[in-house]
């Protein structure tokens, strides 16, 4: 594949990022998806929409989020100077709220009163339930029954916020099945329902729309690092499930050739074990949930069950723009096992007093590997996409109740 002049021009008008993306949905949904695309294109250039976004991002979400120099982590690892983009300090405790705010404001413009969402770890579900409470909208969240069990604090939060959480018992009973069930709801209630997808995946325009709403992470990072260091970063690193926090950080810097970019996939028990969620490292291109992208599947095209200690990364696919950035070699995707993520979880908690979500603990796990190989003037920015309060029970289980 030839290397394009810019990595930031995608998708094309049919929603393709290279070979990936597209609109692989049932006809029932197609007219609505076209209307959503038109509504989003109109909102994007409407100063009133931008003003409304900016207002709520500042006063409700609490942006900008700090770019924090992790002094003790840097000292401990003895290499790159590590900065953490503190998305876990946003209202609701993760980056998910950036996207949900955008989609909820868009749903209001489209006159939709009922919002549905899928969630894995519950971070996107909590963000959606929160914004629905704020704007008085009905909210239904689909969540795999396995995830309902391992992310109880978030289920409680969603219920408290007035959302209806529906445990999904079909298939592997995790995020993939929650998305199937949300799509089934949407196709049934297409007239009054807005589907608020939580990541940079699904049919066009979702991957680019969610990326646009999350790209504030990278834009703030550029300005904040310029202020702190007088220059841009040398490397970026973020965990990738569907890939919204990573795309939010990366997109701003894709055309800065000097910036190395690393996406971290969940390798579960290890790629060779077959029990992982690393779609790029261990998958092939296929079509699921409205887009073509790298997927975990068998030789017959049946989707495999992913495994990760982190419910938010436990998905057998990845956003199509990531698949494209892998194909063209712009972003390097690295696998991180459950054990490495647990090590990252503990290290960041003890050295910086920040308990990371298990999702971004995977990024910490790879920072531990990469930072020591870099010189001390190397500026590395890691997206700390969520806080880990929700994960303490899972971690305690794995550490034999040591917490």
């Amino acid at each position, binding site marked *: 594949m030839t290397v394009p002049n810019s990595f930031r021009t995608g998708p094309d008008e*049919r929603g393709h990022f290279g070979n990936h993306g*597209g*609109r*692989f*949905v*049932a*006809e*029932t*949904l*197609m*007219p*609505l998806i076209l209307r959503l695309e038109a509504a989003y294109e109109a909102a994007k250039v409407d100063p009133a929409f931008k003003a409304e976004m900016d207002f709520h991002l500042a006063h409700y979400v609490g942006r900008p989020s700090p770019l924090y120099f992790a002094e003790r982590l840097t000292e401990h690892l003895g290499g790159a100077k590590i900065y953490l983009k503190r998305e876990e300090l946003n209202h609701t405790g993760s980056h998910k709220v950036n996207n949900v705010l955008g989609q909820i404001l868009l749903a209001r413009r489209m006159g939709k009163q009922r919002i549905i969402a899928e969630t894995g770890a519950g971070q996107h579900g909590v963000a959606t339930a929160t914004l629905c409470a704020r704007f008085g909208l009905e909210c239904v969240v689909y969540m795999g029954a396995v995830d309902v069990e391992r992310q109880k604090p978030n289920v409680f939060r969603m219920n408290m916020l007035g959302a209806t959480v529906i445990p999904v018992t*079909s*298939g592997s009973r995790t995020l*993939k*099945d929650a998305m*199937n069930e949300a*799509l*089934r709801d949407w*196709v*049934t*209630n*297409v*007239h009054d329902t807005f589907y608020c997808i939580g990541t940079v995946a699904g049919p066009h325009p979702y991957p680019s729309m969610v990326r646009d709403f999350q790209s504030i992470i990278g834009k703030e990072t550029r300005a904040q690092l310029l202020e702190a260091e007088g220059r841009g970063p040398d490397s970026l690193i973020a965990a990738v499930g569907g890939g919204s926090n990573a795309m939010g950080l990366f997109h701003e810097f894709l055309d800065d050739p000097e910036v190395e970019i690393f996406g971290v996939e969940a390798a579960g028990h290890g790629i060779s074990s077959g029990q992982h969620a690393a779609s790029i490292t261990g998958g*092939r291109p*296929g*079509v*699921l*949930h*409205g887009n*073509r992208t790298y*997927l975990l*599947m068998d*030789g*017959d*095209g*049946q*989707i495999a069950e992913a495994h990760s200690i982190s419910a938010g990364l436990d998905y057998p696919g990845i956003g199509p723009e990531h698949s494209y950035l892998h194909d063209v070699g712009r972003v390097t995707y690295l696998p991180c096992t459950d054990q490495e993520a647990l090590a990252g979880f503990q290290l960041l908690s003890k050295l910086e007093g920040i308990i990371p979500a298990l999702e971004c603990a995977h990024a910490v796990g790879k920072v531990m590997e990469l930072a020591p190989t870099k010189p001390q003037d190397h500026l590395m920015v890691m997206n700390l996409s969520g806080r880990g309060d929700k994960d303490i029970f899972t971690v305690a289980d794995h550490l034999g109740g040591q917490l």
Partner: protein
Amino acid sequence: MTTRISARFTDLAAAGRPGLVTFITAGDPDFATSLALLKALPAAGADVIELGVPFTDPMADGPAIQAAGLRALKAGQTLAKTLDLVRAFRDGDGVTPIVLMGYFNPIYVYGVPRFLADAKAAGVDGLIVVDLPPEEDDELCLPALAAGLDFIRLATPTTDDGRLPAVLAQTAGFVYYVSITGITGSATPDADLVSAAVARIKRHTDLPVAVGFGVRTPEQAAAIAKGADGVVVGSALVEAVRASLDENGAATSRTVADVETLVRQLADAVRGVRRGAA
């Protein structure tokens, strides 16, 4: 080109009656029983057979067809074996049209050119691929038409007059009107609304229109068939398969007989409907 599908709908029109389209899932509950079911369908009154291609993530299907697909996958069904099933059926039946219905990923992974060649050779007549709207015609629809397979498009209550021409443009064989906004086997369609929708589609095309999603009983089938060229029953048949299985999920002596009985009742009801010459 006259295909088995167009020949069958021509015959139905000449006979002045609507057709019964029956759906079962390939390999449910196992390959041998599935083949026996397939072979029993035409004699029981099925005019067209839709054969579901199992997929782990059937986003447009309700619980009955989801479960049927999982039973088939558990018994080792694959797309290649589904083509084997069609080939074995064609040994004894050269006229009943077979339409494969499913999702794109198994076909994409099999490889589109190889799939089209193998499907044609096995005796498949048409394809319904739920997650390929006209916007993705390059993927399979156009190559399928070039290979001599009908690509049967779904039109839905949300497909308005502005969009219908695009949906119908590359459709061949028949048009499948999805009678509800929803998943298979869920809500019950309103026969009057369906009849009006079929009339609307027929203003845009000369193709036959079959109606499905949510049709369960002989009475419903007859009511829907009054306003259409064909009526599709699926969830009720795979539910009959499920109800006939033993506690281990294995086929019993009732499995084929129960499905045959239901198809016969549906066919009697549908064949009782008279239609004017089209």
